[in-house]
């Protein structure tokens, strides 16, 4: 209990440490600005934006690097709804449900109102989720501290299983993708007996694949190549202007906001489901509990608020397993924890206990970033349509070069560029054939940990193997994981069903 209180007690000190540094403010605002840009631009998105930031964060002081990441993280997820509302193209996959009502509002001449709902709901969703993880994370960590090698292996396995089973409507592709990532993660010298595994005689691969370079390839180069496959860019029309934020509407929707935030956090907590499922799940919940369900899809403020609150809460909720166990809940968070590794933190059970101010610091930065998004989103929405008119064919070459510089800068070895090419082409092929990439990233991140933990657990219990399977905590973890697996499959099916129903209804309406 004392360690939990110590974590909370570190808040005032962290406020002074983090917010007392002017560089933190500067890079947080840069992060918000860049995050806003990548969030509103279809084809860029939070994952690519944050992957690009990986190439530079390790060069910055820790506080400053975290500020940049947190700014980008919040703003890139939160701003996707603006594009969804203005041009009916979700800037991020998490904003897909926002198109339904946001664009309907824009067509009614209420585009500024739609942007207002989108930004303010994103900010509220983020803030509620930040408060929630600040309160709950020390408890989760104290449970995670009881994890031995066996339990950690089980959790990694569970992440892979669920990530595959919940990715898209073809789970077999998710599992293949996850297992491929798992396999790639084990390349190089392993840590139990230093046996070298399939490095193909390349000495640069003795340390394995660099996860930062892998992400720059998968989400950067791969995405650039995939986006540029079509000659025509999207068209923009509509009117810009300052967003209109209607506070009384939010006060009226307080129950909807809290419900959506909690649903978002829950979905974020489960590895592999992601923000896009969270927004549909909450949208459906809001529709079912609304007094005016017939308005959904025709410009309902309730629908917009639910979707935007949930997708932002979900992205923050995904930090819970990431910080406690080192297992990312989403691809964006996978990049976030890779950045923590680069900054010499070790996400996992001991992270919060060894550096209690890290949780407070991240929460403060996310909180301020949410306020920054409110300010920036308000001011920048006037130029959003101009930003959207930049053709991909002009923008993407710069992204490709940034990925290259970032990959090289991360390792300072030319071999990083060969890895970048490999992962770029792999990402492209996976995208072309509709194999989900987040399971591969999850496999890549947890593969080595799972392997080491499994082998260490068996070595430890080699003389009495029955005891390994009967470890009370391991049994609890297994039971809990099976329960979560069932619940999450149910949640996922519900969100997919809701998405299908909502889209079907909208299509019928259009006809």
């Amino acid at each position, binding site marked *: 209990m004392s360690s939990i209180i110590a974590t909370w007690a570190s808040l005032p000190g962290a406020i002074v440490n983090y917010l007392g540094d002017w560089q933190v403010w500067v890079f947080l605002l840069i992060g918000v600005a860049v995050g806003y840009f990548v969030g509103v631009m279809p084809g860029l998105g939070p994952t690519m934006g944050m992957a690009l930031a990986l190439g530079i964060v390790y060069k910055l002081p820790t506080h400053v690097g975290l500020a940049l990441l947190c700014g980008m993280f919040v703003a890139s997820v939160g701003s996707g709804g603006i594009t969804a509302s203005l041009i009916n193209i979700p800037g991020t996959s998490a904003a897909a449900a926002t198109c339904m009502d946001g664009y309907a509002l824009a067509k009614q001449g209420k585009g500024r109102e739609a942007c207002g709902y989108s930004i303010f709901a994103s900010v509220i969703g983020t803030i509620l989720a930040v408060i929630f993880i600040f309160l709950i994370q020390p408890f989760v960590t104290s449970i995670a501290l009881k994890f031995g090698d066996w339990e950690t292996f089980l959790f990694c396995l569970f992440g892979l299983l669920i990530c595959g089973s919940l990715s898209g409507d073809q789970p077999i592709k998710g599992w293949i993708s996850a297992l491929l990532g798992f396999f790639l993660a084990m390349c190089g010298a392993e840590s139990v007996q230093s*046996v070298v*595994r399939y490095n193909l005689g390349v000495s640069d691969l003795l340390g394995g694949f660099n996860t930062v370079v892998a992400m720059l390839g998968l989400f950067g180069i791969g995405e*650039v190549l995939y986006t540029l496959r079509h000659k025509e860019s999207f068209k923009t029309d509509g009117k810009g202007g300052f967003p209109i934020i209607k506070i009384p509407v939010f006060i009226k929707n307080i129950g909807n906001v809290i419900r959506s935030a909690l649903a978002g956090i829950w979905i974020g907590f489960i590895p592999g489901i992601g923000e896009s499922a969270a927004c549909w799940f909450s949208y459906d919940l809001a529709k079912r509990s609304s007094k005016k369900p017939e308005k959904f899809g025709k410009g309902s403020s309730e629908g917009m608020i639910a979707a935007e609150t949930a997708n932002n809460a979900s992205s923050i909720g995904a930090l819970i397993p990431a910080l406690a166990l080192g297992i990312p809940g989403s691809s964006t968070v996978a990049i976030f924890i890779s950045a923590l590794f680069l900054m010499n933190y070790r996400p996992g059970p001991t992270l919060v206990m060894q550096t209690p101010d890290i949780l407070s610091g991240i929460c403060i930065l996310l909180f301020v970033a949410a306020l920054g998004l409110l300010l920036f989103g308000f001011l920048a929405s006037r130029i959003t349509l101009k930003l959207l008119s930049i053709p991909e064919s002009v923008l993407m*070459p710069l992204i490709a070069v940034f990925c290259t*510089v970032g990959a090289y800068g991360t390792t300072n070895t030319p071999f990083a560029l*060969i890895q970048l090419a490999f992962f770029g082409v792999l990402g492209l092929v996976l995208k072309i054939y*509709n194999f989900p990439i987040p399971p591969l990233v999850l496999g890549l991140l947890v593969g080595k940990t799972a*392997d080491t933990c499994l082998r260490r657990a068996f070595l430890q219990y080699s003389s009495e193997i029955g005891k390994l399977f009967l470890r009370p905590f391991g049994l609890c973890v297994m039971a809990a994981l099976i329960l979560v697996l069932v619940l999450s499959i149910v949640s996922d099916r519900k969100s997919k069903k809701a998405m299908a129903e909502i889209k079907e209804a909208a299509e019928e309406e259009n006809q």
Partner: protein
Amino acid sequence: MDKNNKKSFVPGLVVIALGLFLLYLSISISNNPVQLENRIINFITEARFLPLMISITILILGVIFTIKLAKGTITCASGMTKDVAVREGILTLMTVVYLVLVTKFNFLIPTTAYLVGLLFYLNWGKKKWWVLLIIAAIYIVVALIITPYILQLKIHLL
């Protein structure tokens, strides 16, 4: 079986081939230097155990995937027309060649050639040539000079 059905399960065969390749790589992993007496525990703690399990699972999934593709219960088509495939191929080739060239000739010359080539290829007929050159020059300055200078990234220009 018509031509489309024949083509439809090719991605499944690719996954099977991948599984076989990974299986070969897993089998090639050498034994642990320190062996345990209990053979089962020793097998599980071998460095090749998980890679072996994964490659076998990929192989099994590959077979299931192929059967499902052949039956038409799932789809795995790229959906690309010939034009898009050619364009995609050219872009991929340019990028891979660029990355390989940077490892040999450092950043400045390959990046200049890549940016100019890519911008002209993607925007030919849409933007004036001198505008594209200016954009390429700005990108080079931003990506290779300003950003590395601010962040103190060590990249070799020439």
